[in-house]
């Protein structure tokens, strides 16, 4: 019979006076129903008290296999599906898909439609960033900025409702143009919104949240994403610019008519902490709204008269055989569509959507290691994910 040392038994039971209490890591399932996972994300956290040792994302709760759907519908039929990918920035999703198809078909879009697309896409960027602003405030514990942001977002949605009849899922951009021309007085309503909005950002949004001392304490130096790591993980959009990488597809790989407008690319400067922390990512979004305002002002002034649809577009679209990858700067980052047409079918043979949120979320495991539970919430919020876009 082997000799059993009492010490060993005690250590195993955690009752040895030298061993102290037996401790074990706690596995915490955050989500899929949790107030601040922004949808149905599940994060499996291995925690030591309040400290996160490892956070593993489990996604797919909203998976609809949109790419399979797209293979079974006509080219135009995909557009409503793209709406439902990132339901907070549907215009941007429409935009990316239609310019990819147009690139494959090699057709031109009327000038007026191009301007309409840019105006609506930028209004959508404002609405989407307002949502990010509001929900981020809520993640940090401030409720009021959320409703202030929603008040402003409401004006944008009203404009969209008057323009195309829908408030959330627009199906507004069609292959070869846009679905509706502007109504009388759109430009004036838009301008008056932009004027008040700019003032509201600087006089209301920034004092209550952006430069709040507690907010800065909570977000500065938290979740630092270095530029190298960001590029390596394929982070795009405000999250990449928050890391100080001066990269914006609207300027660096211009599509549509973005080369005609004068705007700045906002990058994180580490004003309150380190470059690439949550506060930088947040601030990039706030300032980007102002840049969008500038673009919309210019577009409204330059917008020509003319048709809004390419007349050659028939009801059943024939797309020549070929492959194309089109990408745009959606509010949450680079949104790409990889389309393969065999030239015979009525719809795409293969459609792959490269969603910005999918890549952005993948970095969470890396940057949340060793942070606190409250920081994890701050990091998820600053990545600004939409689960419809992650899961597709």
């Amino acid at each position, binding site marked *: 019979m082997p000799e059993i040392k009492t010490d060993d038994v005690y250590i195993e039971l955690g009752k040895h006076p030298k061993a102290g209490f037996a401790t074990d890591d706690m596995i915490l399932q955050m989500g899929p129903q949790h107030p601040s996972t922004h949808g149905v994300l599940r994060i499996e956290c291995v925690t030591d008290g309040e400290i996160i040792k490892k956070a593993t994302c489990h996604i797919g709760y909203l998976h609809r296999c949109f790419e399979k759907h797209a293979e079974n519908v006509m080219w135009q039929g995909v557009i409503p599906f793209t709406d439902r990918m990132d339901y907070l920035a549907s215009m941007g999703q429409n935009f990316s898909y239609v310019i990819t198809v147009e690139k494959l078909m090699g057709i031109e879009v009327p000038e007026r439609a191009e301007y309409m697309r840019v105006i609506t896409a930028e209004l959508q960027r404002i609405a989407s960033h307002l949502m990010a602003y509001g929900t981020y405030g809520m993640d940090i514990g401030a409720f009021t900025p959320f409703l202030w942001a929603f008040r402003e977002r409401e004006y944008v949605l009203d404009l969209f409702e008057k323009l195309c009849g829908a408030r959330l899922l627009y199906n507004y951009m069609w292959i070869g143009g846009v679905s509706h021309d502007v109504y009388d007085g759109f430009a004036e309503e838009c301008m008056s919104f932009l004027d008040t909005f700019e003032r509201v950002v600087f006089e209301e949004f920034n004092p209550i949240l952006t430069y709040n001392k507690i907010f800065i304490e909570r977000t500065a130096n938290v979740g630092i994403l270095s530029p190298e790591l960001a590029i390596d993980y*394929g982070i795009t959009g405000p999250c990449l610019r928050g890391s100080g990488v001066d*990269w914006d597809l609207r300027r660096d790989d211009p599509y549509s008519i973005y080369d005609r407008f004068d705007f700045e690319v906002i990058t994180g400067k580490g004003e309150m902490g380190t470059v690439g922390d949550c506060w930088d990512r947040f601030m990039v979004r706030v300032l980007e709204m102002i840049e969008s305002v500038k673009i919309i002002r210019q577009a409204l002034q330059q917008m020509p008269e003319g048709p809004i649809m390419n007349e050659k577009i028939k009801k059943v679209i024939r797309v020549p055989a070929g*492959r194309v990858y089109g990408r745009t700067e959606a509010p949450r980052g680079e949104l790409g569509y990889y389309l393969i047409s065999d030239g015979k079918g009525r719809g795409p043979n293969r459609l792959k959507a490269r969603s910005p949120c999918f890549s952005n979320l993948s970095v969470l495991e890396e940057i949340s290691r060793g942070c606190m539970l409250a920081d994890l919430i701050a990091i998820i919020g600053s990545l600004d994910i939409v689960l419809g876009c992650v899961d597709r």
Partner: protein
Amino acid sequence: MVQGEFVMTIEEIYKKLRKSFGGTILESDLEVLEPVVGIEPQSIAEVSGFLKNEPDLKFTSLMCLSSVDLDEENLQVVYHLHSMDHNHKIILGVIIPKNAAKIPTVSGVWRTANWHEREAFDLMGVEFEGHPDHRRILCPDDWEGHPLRKDYVVQEMYNGLPVPYPKEEDD
């Protein structure tokens, strides 16, 4: 960002790759819209490493990793690469047979490939050798089949629940 200074056309990149890797870079039609450079499956990881680290190529970002169901026998994995430093692009394509869909992982080169490869495995059934976390990502872990294959048939039951939406009976 510095732009346009060292932009290489696709032909130049293709020639450079041929010079370094020879036969593993397949003959490719570079005349079409957005041409795909074919690569031998086994050398994709080395080619990727080369493309990323070579100073005048510097493909630091993997824009997109797609899996394509080409025809009855073959699958294709397509890599869209982009260099933020030089602002040039290249598309790599690897053709693999359906019955032995195995390919080395590039998640060691670009870490964003980690999730994209998991997605390709989940939806198309491409296995990535050496992947650090080779699991399904979007579908449940015990799902059967790979939905994006053209010959995919949805399973009848999943954990005791009927999967296809029940058709309404005609009255």
